[in-house]
């Protein structure tokens, strides 16, 4: 009888002690930390939102670079046309460093497709003009006639636009992003090439945030 009473009392107490000691780990998340995980830029990471991410940037710019090279005006040009970059317009709900798109397209075209197109460093004009002026005034040496205008004018403008459509309700959030890019003839304003990519992402946050 005594044993049964003791078991009746001791059993729940042990159970509760186990439950209570479970609290010892509360407030400590990943106590040993998580090592740095190296990932490819085109890989979806475990930290993800519904906005523009590196894998989107890689997929979009890869597609655009390939598509530009298939354009007759580029493919069949006798001399590599000079392309100027005009900033991409962000018409989405995601603030981003939109220069990344044109930078990656430019680097892809320059590094993988030699001499098909030529870009000029208009973002370095101040330094270039300073160097030219030094040459013109004889302060530094020059290998050509510095009075001849040699800065290249552009044949095409490469630009683009990011637009989005968002739906949000109690079941989550959905973001569609349209990435469109175009090459504009600098002389005629004709759009000689245009292509697009699109992404749709959905997510729902934990109920405690809703």
């Amino acid at each position, binding site marked *: *009888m005594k044993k*049964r*009473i*003791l078991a*009746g*009392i*001791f059993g*729940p*107490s042990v*159970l*509760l*002690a186990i*439950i*209570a*000691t479970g*609290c*010892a780990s*509360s*407030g400590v*998340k990943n106590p040993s930390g998580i090592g740095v995980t190296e990932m490819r830029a085109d890989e979806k990471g475990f*930290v*993800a*939102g*519904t*906005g523009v991410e590196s894998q989107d940037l890689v997929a979009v710019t890869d597609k655009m670079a390939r598509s530009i090279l298939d354009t007759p005006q580029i493919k069949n040009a006798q001399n590599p046309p000079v392309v100027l970059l005009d900033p991409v*317009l*962000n*018409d*989405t*709900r*995601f*603030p*981003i460093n*939109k220069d990344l798109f044109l930078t990656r397209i430019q680097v892809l075209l320059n590094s993988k497709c030699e001499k098909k197109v030529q870009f000029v460093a208009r973002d370095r004009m101040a330094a270039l003009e300073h160097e030219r002026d030094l040459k013109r005034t004889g302060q530094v040496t020059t290998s050509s006639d510095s009075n001849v205008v040699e800065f290249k004018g552009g044949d095409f403008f490469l630009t683009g636009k990011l637009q989005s459509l*968002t739906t*949000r*309700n*109690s079941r*989550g*959030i959905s973001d569609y992003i349209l990435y469109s890019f175009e090459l504009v003839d600098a002389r005629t304003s004709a759009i000689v090439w245009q292509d697009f990519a699109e992404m749709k992402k959905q*997510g*729902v*946050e*934990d*109920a*405690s*945030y*809703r």
Partner: protein
Amino acid sequence: MKMLASSCLVGALVAGCATTETSENWQRTGDPLVDGRAAIEHSQKRDRALWEYRTAATAMRRGQFGEAKQWLDDALLTLGGIYGPDKDARKARSYFASESKKTFIGEPYERVMAYYYRGILYWIDGELDNARACFRSGEIMDSDAENKSYSGDYVLLDYLDGLITSKLGSDGSEALKRAQAESRMAKPPDFDLQANALFFVEFGSGPLKYATGQYGEELRFRPGHSPVRAIQIKLNGQTVRAEPYDDLTFQATTRGGRVMDHILANKAVFKRATDTAGNVAIIGGAILASQQGSHSAADEVGLGLLAAGIISKIFSAATTPTADVRAWDNLPQFLSFTAVRLPAGPQAVTVEFLDANGSPIANLTQTVTMTVSDPPRDTVIFVSDKNQ
């Protein structure tokens, strides 16, 4: 006797859990910027965004926009990455952990303000499209209201979205129409695309949170307040008045219930039920155990009931239905905006904060010299009654 001892032991263990919350482990100096930086560095990870919000607001009022940008960018990364399973959030939903265990991102009105401030900072930097992106994201944060008539109803966010769209050469008239239709206070004017000096204005103290209900399971908002009703800006021979377009107390209190409110209500029901069941079992067990002779079957049942009652009471005590009342506590009550045309160069500006009678509140008047940029770049001025 043994039962009492083991119960005490268990009680002590359970009570021990309540002390796992750590207190502030940094020295407060009284300077909100210094304290904010320390809090961001030393506070628990789940409170980091809260401190970043607060510190960013303080930095903006001191004109330290670079620092505000840094904190808001980090907080918005947290805010933008909450989709999918989250261990802390799951814990916050459990019976035995409080809601404040989750990573703080704020209620929708707080999330909106993080995007709003970041939008202003992008505008200061001349990145109009990214500013617009922030205003749009802010409106999205407000769009999942239980009461749909108050969904995405920030006048200023729509107005600024439309203004930027128009400045960038597209048609912003739809956003303007929405803003004018949503206005409950002052009605925003038509866009002046030639206006190059933009004043983002805020005043008053915003809403705060408190918990009510038997176990503090109901989240409520203490209304914000402001003696200021409008502001008047005197510059270059002009006087312009900025009336409030948005009221953060209104925004905080008109969204309807949260999903989390239902979860907290369930926790409260569980706590109440286990408490009542524990009372009944303890009383019943005590009566049974005391009315029969020792070693009887009733004695055994009574002791068993007593033990079950204690277990139930302990479960009740460990259940934490308290609502999360962590709040971005230095938000303003009212938001306003005005834009004027100014020639490039230095301009003396006097900002007067007007009371309900339209009289300037003397100790709030600010006089500053601003330098207006050459067109087409806008000059953005952030005006707060808490500017320092």
